[in-house]
């Protein structure tokens, strides 16, 4: 199947677990077969990624309902209340992580747009359709996600040059 890798990659980043990702992809494939007869798919990859994403959120609601409640954008917004600077609050959590780990640590609404944009190279419009959000929201989430990751990346670079060492 042509877009299996793309679907698997998205599921793997969303679930952060190899075997959970495979469960999600398998469910998505069954759904794709179901819908195939009625679809007018212009782009098979965006279509399949939409199904994978839906399968993931259903899986999350079934298996990790607590996580779903916590890991949404409002949770992220609440970081702003905890610190003067929301970026700093999350950066604190991610500063010691490699870039990939920092992405994995992002709240879901930010993680999914980053994966769709940087790994699948989809346009804002395509991402908006897949994630079912307005294009403006895609833009603002990507922008904030990158700022967070920039912080993580910059600190890591600082560490690796050894310039930060007064140890």
């Amino acid at each position: 199947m042509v877009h299996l890798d793309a679907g698997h990659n998205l599921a793997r980043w969303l679930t952060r677990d190899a075997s959970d990702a495979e469960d999600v992809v398998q469910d998505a494939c069954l759904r794709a077969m179901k819908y195939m007869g009625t679809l007018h798919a212009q782009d098979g990859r965006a279509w399949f990624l939409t199904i994978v994403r839906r399968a993931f959120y259903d899986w999350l609601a079934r298996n990790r309902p607590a996580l779903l409640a916590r890991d949404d954008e409002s949770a992220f917004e609440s970081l702003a209340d905890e610190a003067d600077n929301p970026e700093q609050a999350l950066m604190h959590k991610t500063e010691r992580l490699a870039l990939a780990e920092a992405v994995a640590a992002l709240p879901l609404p930010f993680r999914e747009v980053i994966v769709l944009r940087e790994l699948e190279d989809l346009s804002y419009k395509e991402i908006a359709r897949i994630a079912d959000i307005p294009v403006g929201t895609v833009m603002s989430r990507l922008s904030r996600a990158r700022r967070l990751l920039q912080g993580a990346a910059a600190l890591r670079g600082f560490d690796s040059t050894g310039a930060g060492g007064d140890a």
Partner: protein
Amino acid sequence: MNCDEVSALLAAEVDGEVDPLRSHALRKHAAGCTGCGARLEAIAETRRRLRSELPYHAARAAFRVRLAASLSTASPVRAAKAGRWRWFGGGLAAGVLASGLVWVTSTAGLQAPFGADLPTRLVGLHTRATLGNHLIEVASPDRHTIKPWLSARLDYAIPVVDAAGAGYALMGARIDRLDGRAVAVLVYRHRTHIIDVFVRPASGGTATAGSTVRGFNVAQAEGAAMQWLAASDLNADELAVFVTALAQGRLGE
């Protein structure tokens, strides 16, 4: 543009999502403003690093095998509720809705008459093959491997050519069921497009013009006493030219 306007658009600029006019104004501002220029470069750098450092998790081979097995035993279900998918463009024509049963037709091996729904059935077989990982049963670019493999499973023999020279690389073949009988399917790749070519003895029936079903194109030609039916997401024009050349033996070697 001032710094506020620019900073709202920096990320979109890096993603190539700003229209040329505003992009020009933005670049001009960033060239003369150290703050905005540095931020633009920082976002571009983050993007470069994300793209080079993030692992891409392709599906494992073992999982592919397991998935293919589970999908082939899954029963096809008639799809319902298409409304929410309308954004895929064009809406849903009544004929497309009716094609929801295409899976039942193809998997239950029902004898369907050769009719106007042939393109729909071909697209159904094509999409099902690509989705279920059953696209290719004998994978080889070598026609001397494919031809005997097909001959052993069919009651007719077909010409097999690799058209890699023309940009259409032969990937392999499979057997599919069409109108109640086993037919040869040659699988070609052109750029990123997969093309299924169903080949069966010409029946002298009415030739159907090319058509489009759910974004997939179907084209057909006759040649070498065979009917050649191609289904792919390749554009209609190229597909028609390819299948005609293939049927008339003008490709390969």
